[in-house]
């Protein structure tokens, strides 16, 4: 399975999740909109809109959760006719990340949950030391554009050794 990453430390955990959970699409983002890794998308514009929507759903889900349960909702599942969406928050030393995944009948929400638990553990273990959390609204577009450039080969992923000249 091919995964594209903007930061190398997410590559192995995300690849394993995609392989095992057999999801069609996966998008790992920072709530600021920074895309850390993706699988299944072929166009930057699709990643852009999916990450914007995922960030928005996460933000509104968190707000509703806080309102109703005094805590943000941890995960959201939407079952469509052919495809289903699973969106969940995963805490790491770099701050909370959000995973959006889309799957069909070759997987299930039960399986995606099992492998998401594994992904959470792997990301928490692989994350480098905490970085200052970017502000959501102010840098959203800038972060998104930077990560898209890395994902689609127009910039080196963060953490990638720079080749000798």
């Amino acid at each position, binding site marked *: 399975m091919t995964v594209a990453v903007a930061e190398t430390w997410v590559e192995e955990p995300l690849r394993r999740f995609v392989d095992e959970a057999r999801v069609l699409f996966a998008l790992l983002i920072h709530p600021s909109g920074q895309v850390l890794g993706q699988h299944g998308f072929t166009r930057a514009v699709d990643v852009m809109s999916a990450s914007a929507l995922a960030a928005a759903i996460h933000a509104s889900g968190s707000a509703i959760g806080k309102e109703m349960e005094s805590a943000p909702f941890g995960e959201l599942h939407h079952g469509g006719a052919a495809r289903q969406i699973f969106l969940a928050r995963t805490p790491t030393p770099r701050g909370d990340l959000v995973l959006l995944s889309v799957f069909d009948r070759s997987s299930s929400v*039960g399986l995606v*949950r099992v492998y998401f638990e594994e992904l959470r553990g792997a990301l928490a273990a692989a994350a480098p030391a905490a970085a200052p959390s970017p502000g959501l609204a102010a840098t959203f577009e800038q972060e998104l554009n930077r990560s898209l450039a890395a994902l689609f080969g127009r910039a080196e992923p963060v953490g990638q050794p720079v080749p000798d000249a």
Partner: protein
Amino acid sequence: MTGPYQGALASVARQRGILGAMVVDANDDIIVDAAVRHGVKAPTVAALAASIYRKARQSAGAAGLGDTTFLRMEAEQGHIFAAGRGALVLIALAESTVNVGLVRLAMLQAASGLP
């Protein structure tokens, strides 16, 4: 024990060597009800076992073998059993020393009684 699935779960869970019994949604692989011993990762067992059962069902159907009613998987350190009824699958996790024949009968009987 109360609830519509507890009778079926209890009849399987009481067999010697059974570590856990679960009624699982066959489409979502999510536990509907369960009776498991401490230490058993029920959601993981349920999702993976139900997924194996679903794959067996799909494959057997595609191969023209009809509907799948019962599945047994043997591993070095235990067994997984699955028996389906409609949109539900009854799953059991067992030690390797379990009496396979008795568990099979209990599972089939319990599955046939699932509401």
